[in-house]
């Protein structure tokens, strides 16, 4: 391995280690709240209301909502981790430690993104463990389940990074999660199948990218979903390519981080 490549590798793992240590240091704020939320969703929607609904798309209602609840934790936390970490680095100016070091922008981006993926998957794993108290689901397609989780996490980590680049106040990093991500996640078919909706709203729902992620993940766990699997992969990969390219272009220009 060339010395340049070796340097980039060391820098990458340093960023990843720092990012993981950051969210683990404050695990009470970063890891446990999503698990508590998941317990509430499963208890209220899956247990209390779900016992009246019984089945959705041919599976028990509790089993139907579990993939969506896990995916919601992954999406929100991947996004929040990167947007919050990157924005803090900007506000406290310690992003300058990276900008003056001989690290390529792609390595900086990759380090932050893997940090976001680590938190997304940590939350996803914890919610899955919690879910085992409510259901005994075993993924039908484990490779699909894991790959959709990782790719979704990468996509939303990129989204969080982009948000942080443009953000100038703490309000700016809470607007997207509160007013865009959360509504899209709820309308992304966590608690219902879009086949229940009138035709018009089915078409509108299909414009929501989160629908493809939740259904892809649901296919991995239950073996069935509202959306063909290839469409889920296609949507996620297109978003990753687009968001990743925009992030790299903005980093190269120094947008939001250089004068």
């Amino acid at each position, binding site marked *: 391995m060339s*010395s*340049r490549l*070796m*340097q*980039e590798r*060391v*820098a990458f*793992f*340093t*960023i990843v*280690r*720092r990012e993981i*240590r950051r969210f683990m*240091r404050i695990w009470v704020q970063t890891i446990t709240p999503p698990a508590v939320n998941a317990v509430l969703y499963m208890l209220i929607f899956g247990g209390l209301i779900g016992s009246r609904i019984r089945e959705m798309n041919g599976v028990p209602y509790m089993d139907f909502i579990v993939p969506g609840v896990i995916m919601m934790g992954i999406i929100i936390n991947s996004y929040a981790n990167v947007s919050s970490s990157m924005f*803090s*680095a900007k506000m*406290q*100016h*310690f992003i*300058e*430690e*990276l*900008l*003056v*070091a*001989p*690290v*390529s922008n792609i390595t900086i981006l990759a380090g932050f993104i893997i940090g976001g993926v680590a938190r997304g998957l940590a939350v996803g794993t914890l919610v899955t463990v919690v879910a085992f108290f409510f259901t005994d689901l075993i993924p039908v397609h484990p490779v699909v389940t894991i790959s959709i989780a990782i790719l979704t996490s990468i996509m939303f980590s990129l989204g969080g990074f982009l948000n942080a680049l443009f953000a100038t106040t703490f309000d700016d990093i809470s607007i997207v999660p509160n007013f865009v991500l959360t509504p899209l996640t709820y309308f992304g078919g966590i608690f219902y199948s879009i086949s229940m909706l009138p035709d018009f709203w089915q078409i509108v729902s299909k414009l929501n990218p989160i629908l493809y992620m939740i259904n892809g993940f649901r296919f991995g766990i239950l073996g069935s979903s509202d959306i063909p699997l290839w469409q889920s992969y296609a949507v996620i990969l297109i978003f990753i390519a687009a968001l990743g390219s925009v992030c790299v272009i903005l980093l190269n*220009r*120094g947008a939001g981080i*250089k*004068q």
Partner: protein
Amino acid sequence: MSALTIKDLRKTYDGGVEALKGIDLDVEDGNFFALLGPNGAGKSTAIGIISSLVNKTSGHVSVCGFDLDKNREAAKANIGLVPQEFNFNVFETVQSIVLNVAGYNGIKRRVAKQRTEYYLKQLSLWDKRDTVSRNLSGGMKRRLMIARALVHEPKLLILDEPTAGVDIEIRRTMWEFLTRVNKEEGTSIILTTHYLEEAEALCKDVAIIDHGQIVEQGTVSELLSRSMMETFVLDTDVTTIPEQVGGYHMRHRDDGKAEIDVPQGTALNDVFKALSESNISVSSLRNKENRLEAFFVRLVQSKRDDSASIDHESSTKEGAV
């Protein structure tokens, strides 16, 4: 080889402010170089561009022979930066901050730990290694930034007002440390400071920047020889000091003493005679060591006066048209 070469460097900010108007600078390898200038002169912009924190508008910068446009990573590997403002993670410990920066510079963990220990000990921060950085005193924070800038052992160390707000004792310790880094390790150092006494004591070469242009450049001794004036500090019992005494300019100091500017070569007898005629009795006198400051103040003031007279002339001409 030069540690730093700058050619026709220009920077215009988005709002239209022209911070650098084409500066040229050459810092020899191993030099201890002072970049001086009043607030807003363009020092921090120049440093920002050299260290890749600010995008330049045009011009060329090369660090240790590596062009910033063509080989940015190699150029950056040779720079250590101590910025003016604290810019570390206030929730991290001292040791983590230095270790992380070593990692960003591609230094493997084992070596990074050794170097972190070495530089924290050198800067008397090893005992504070597990302290969260926000709990450090101002002087410790400055020293932390120096340790962090040196951990990858750069060939060029840039310090932007490193002793601002630091007490005299710590400032002297930092001077000794920086002199050692420069002399023993051969690290080239560029220093900006408002304490001109610091530049006079530490630096070999000086450039003075004002309104985005280099207005003077040379060795400290060259600039001082151009000064042509000496300043003396007087202990006197007079409470009201006149501005002019026998043609010499005088002023009051905050510590109750007075200062008098005297052209080089003037007989001190003449000075005392003028003071006596003005009924100013002097109990002691010493030559003010901080001669560079006097030169700097006069230079910047004369440039301001020149530009003011040019502005006045042009406005008069415009008025005539």
